[in-house]
């Protein structure tokens, strides 16, 4: 299980209405249904992943997130979630606004580009980082808007968004202490639970 998906259920109360933007194969929505009795719906554009959602009995709507979420009513979901997809959006700031318009709260996870290995890669090789989690080259990557933990929190302040929870995680246990104290340097994935002030 992806480590951000492990943590998200701890933010969520029972029986909440959830919209998962870019829900992938439905793993998270299934987890939330099984553990939190969530009433969830997923939006996804990848055909194979949509089929996998259906196999898990997850309600999924074929949808291109870059076409915008105007059709969703304000405050129509308890929580709007987007995991590891914000960096692939054309305008992450607009997406964040929309998530907090549609949901009373939102949960966002993203790969932290400030991680020491990304920094080291750029410093040593002078080339854009390529890793297991982010295996793409600069020219073919769907991830067009990378940010660091600090960048993201600066955006939250600018937009007057409050952080209800945050967790900085790394696949390796050894890093958890470092993640806590130097999140921008040691966390691979940042997890934020947000609401409007």
């Amino acid at each position, binding site marked *: 299980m992806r480590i951000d998906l492990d943590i998200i259920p701890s933010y969520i109360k029972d029986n909440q209405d959830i919209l998962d933007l870019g829900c992938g194969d439905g793993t998270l929505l299934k987890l939330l249904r099984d553990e939190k009795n969530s009433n969830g719906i997923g939006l996804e554009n990848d055909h194979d992943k949509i089929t996998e959602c*259906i196999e898990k*009995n997850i*309600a*999924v709507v*074929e949808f291109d997130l870059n076409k915008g979420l105007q*059709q969703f*009513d304000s405050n129509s979901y308890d929580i709007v979630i987007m995991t590891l997809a914000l960096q692939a959006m054309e305008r992450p700031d607009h997406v964040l606004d929309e998530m907090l318009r549609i949901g009373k709260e939102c949960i966002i996870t993203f790969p932290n580009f400030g991680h020491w290995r990304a920094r080291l890669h750029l410093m040593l090789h002078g080339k854009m980082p390529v890793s297991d989690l982010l295996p793409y080259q600069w020219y073919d990557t769907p991830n067009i808007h990378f940010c660091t933990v600090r960048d993201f929190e600066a955006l939250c302040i600018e937009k007057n968004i409050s952080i209800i929870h945050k967790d900085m995680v790394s696949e390796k246990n050894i890093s958890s202490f470092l993640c806590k104290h130097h999140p921008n340097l040691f966390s691979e994935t940042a997890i934020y639970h947000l609401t409007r002030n």
Partner: protein
Amino acid sequence: MDGFPKGSVGLVEAKTQHFDTPLPLANGRVLSEYDIIYETYGELNSDKSNAILICHALSGDHHAAGFYSEDEKRPGWWDHYIGPGKAIDTNHFFVLSLNNIGGCNGSTGPLSINPKTGKVWGENFPTLRVRDWVETQKRLADLLGIKRWAAIVGGSLGGMQAMRWSLEYPDRVKNCIAIASALKLTAQNIAFNETARQAIMADPNFFEGRYSEHNTIPKDGLAVARMIGHITYLSGDGMGEKFGRELRSGSFSLGCDDPLEFEIESYLRYQGTKFSTQFDANTYILMTRALDYFDLAREYNHNAVEAFSHATCKFLVISFTTDWRFSPERSKEIVQALLHAKKPVTYAEIESSYGHDAFLVPNKRYNDVFSGFMANIAHDIKRGES
């Protein structure tokens, strides 16, 4: 094993049920008695929880799967998706497919005798709305002891019936599957239907719908109506791929004056002519009008969200990329209303070059989505039984 293809429900037989409880219709008239012809595939389980209702489209009928005899060349119209191991898996489900009233394949319709006059109904057969069909389908369900359909499934006009069920009898539908359908027709779509109707009415053998009295049928008009319909059921690209500008006969060589015929002309004429002797013109008019009149949200303040707020079932909506008669946009309107109404909905837009006809044609992704959704329904039924 018999000589039927693998995955076929095999030999099937139609049954006719007579109803003599008068049926009040949406237009205020009453049908005093009527027959419904239907077929079933698979076994009804002990608690009658595995029943699937198939609602047919404009020119469909009750013969959705299997064969009437070993000699029959073509199986029922949805045989690709109904049968053992297929999307609507008859190993799990009891499938009921009927011919709607107003039809011309065995259920009471314009070709039937009006018991009050002793004459053929013809153009006097009452105009019907989708809700009238839902009512007759409900009566058949009552008779068979089916309290709740595991799913109601339909393409095009059939999808409209499935959606109407979900609002009229929410506690009697667990799943609603609307394929290549719409909340209501667009002006353009009504325009195609009206052009087809005018083609029929312009036929000198139409006799204002009383052609039976004159022992004739408006064959040419119905053929043109079918040709118009057929063009709109295919996609421009699909038609181009299949026929292009190929000639059936003649040549463009200089000096050649032989009659020229494009393949597409020959194909359309063949389809039109075939249809014109198999289908009834008054039924065609009646069915296209029912399509035109349908507006799911009309009595819900023209608000589809308010309409769907009455539904309690799960929904599967499917559209096809090249379908311009019931385009993906129409399906997205259904999905959007369902999302606003906070109803569980799954939606897939299937790549296909077959236009509106795609819902009848084999397609891997369509089959994956459809089968996957149906497998969950089968699973729920099994869990309910144990």
